[in-house]
């Protein structure tokens, strides 16, 4: 009916991860709170494996000195140490971030500023505590 040119703007899109298919720039900027959330699940999954390793320790102990020595040699090898380092990082991260969640559940610190700040605190604690424990391990002959 009208000869006026149609506006050629893109139709609005509902929020999702990417603007226009694979390889396009992300619509959402990664916030530190998104990292702290996904890493809570990731560290929980890592600790799932860690608890199975702890169960294997108990079983090896019950199986006697030879199996226990095998188990200790496996964890003391380089791949074993890498796994244990990752588990140390996971346990301190999951612990600190779990406390952060408990504080939220109690109704505190859920505003944007506090949530961003506590995420930084949790990351810093996990890194510092992991380095401290591995430092102590090195000094006490646990490595």
């Amino acid at each position: 009916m009208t000869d006026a040119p149609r506006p050629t703007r893109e139709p609005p899109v509902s929020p999702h991860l990417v603007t226009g298919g694979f390889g396009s720039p992300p619509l959402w900027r990664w916030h530190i709170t998104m990292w702290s959330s996904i890493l809570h699940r990731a560290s929980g999954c890592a600790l799932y494996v860690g608890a199975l390793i702890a169960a294997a320790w108990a079983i090896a102990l019950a199986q006697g000195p030879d199996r226990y020595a095998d188990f200790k040699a496996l964890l003391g090898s380089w791949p074993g140490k890498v796994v244990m380092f990752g588990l140390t990082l996971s346990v301190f991260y999951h612990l600190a971030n779990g406390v952060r969640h408990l504080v939220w559940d109690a109704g505190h610190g859920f505003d944007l500023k506090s949530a961003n700040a506590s995420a930084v605190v949790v990351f810093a604690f996990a890194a510092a505590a992991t380095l401290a424990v591995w430092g102590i391990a090195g000094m006490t002959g646990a490595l």
Partner: protein
Amino acid sequence: MVSYRTPLGRARGLGSAMQGAGHWVSERVSAIALVPLVLWAIYGVLRLAAGDYGFAVHWIQDPLNATLTALTLAISFWHMQSGMRVIVEDYIHKALSKSALLLVNLFVCWLAGALAIFSILKVALSGGAL
């Protein structure tokens, strides 16, 4: 009392199972218990890593160490079963895959937990194979 449920909702019979809060609370209670237990366990791992089989047997024969180790493992397996259940329920939507994964999660946690605690009790009560 007025019901706000739609006729379709009534016919399907879906809705709250009146159990959601229990799962939520048990996750938090186990989390609170694990804070001191896990910190103690990290200290225990540091000591055990520096010792040999004889030291580990001696260590687990201490009633405090045996009890705290068994509790840490039991509550950890309980907590991780709850956590993995939520992950499966969030990401897996096919009924058969979801049920299968939830069962595997439950059985793995119970089996590993039972094996670990039996092993600890065996060494703590018998003194190991010294």
